């Protein structure tokens, strides 16, 4: 099952999907680092992942 994570930084509506938690964590951390000059912890990313039953697992941003 694919998973989805969406950014809640003020003014940011970036979201990403990937095959699983292991695949999505580095994508999210890259976004937070490059766009917001900050960091997001692995457990915090995993804690708010949404399951996407029929979602594509491309790793691309929405």
């Amino acid at each position, binding site marked *: 099952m694919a998973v989805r994570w969406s950014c809640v930084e003020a003014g940011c509506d970036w979201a990403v999907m990937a095959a699983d938690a292991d695949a999505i964590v580095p994508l999210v951390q890259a976004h937070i680092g490059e766009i917001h000059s900050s960091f997001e912890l692995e*457990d*915090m990313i995993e804690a708010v992942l949404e399951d996407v039953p029929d979602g594509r697992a491309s790793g691309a941003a929405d």
Partner: protein
Amino acid sequence: MSSVAEIESKFHFSREMLAGPIYRKYEKAIRKVWSVEDLDFTKDALDWQRITPEQQKGLLGVTIRFLAGEQAVTDELVPMLAAAHALRRFDWTMFLSTFLMEEAKHAEFFMRWHEKVVGVLDPDEVAPHFLVRGKTIDPSGRFEVRDVMHEALPHYGSRLLEASVSGSEAEIERAFVQFSAAYNAFVEGVLTMPSYEIVIDATAQWDAFPTLNQGFKLILMDEGRHITFGTEACRILIEKNPEYEEAVHEIFDAYRGNVVGLVEYQKAVPGLDLGKYQTMKVRHYRNRCREMGITPDATLIDQILDPTIDFVVGVEAG
């Protein structure tokens, strides 16, 4: 003669528990154990000698509060263990055993860093560098700043301990949500996150203190588990009784001034981007609410982001 149910009550493991999120956090904590003894403070001690007195003062203001804070959170965790026992949640007890050990280790890290790098350790040596938050002034008079770490945690911890000893299940659960909201969601999960980042940013900007930077990253790895344990536990209890959501908002409301004001370290450490740390507090607040399955307070978010609300939490405010 013991009944089958009495005998079965002596055993806590189940396949459902092993597959659950809290037990998986326990397993991860065991896999990720690190030791302060493995860290080398030599380069940090040399860097301390070469930075300016202003930089020393700014950095020490942050690290001394961490030294006190890590001791406080180690000391204040017992009520959660008592509650996990009273609620018969053995997976919570197992995870909390790693949580307590890790908080003690974080206190050890800061004790060793101050001893080996700055040369201070005893209470009379470190206390003069402690930034006291009670003197904060909000010029608009709208917000009160209180010491959430050293005031709220003991207060809500005592309530939780009392409920765990003599309260009903609902009283324990509500007290747990209040304590966890203060400890994991507010202090660890929102208020402290910019402080970690300020130290990491400052050490990168100064190209100094590699072991302080490494220690902060190791501590953050642990804190990510602690925070999401607390918010997951709150989510479980709030799903069981949605009225507990109000207990979370009560905590954030009571200490609103602390999260709305700027972190004192932003001003104490020269050369940092002040706006970044307000914005990231909003991200962390929204994420903690997402983790707990509750609705964020939109007014609180507006106040954190309001550029006209710019008083600084700490002695240099006003």
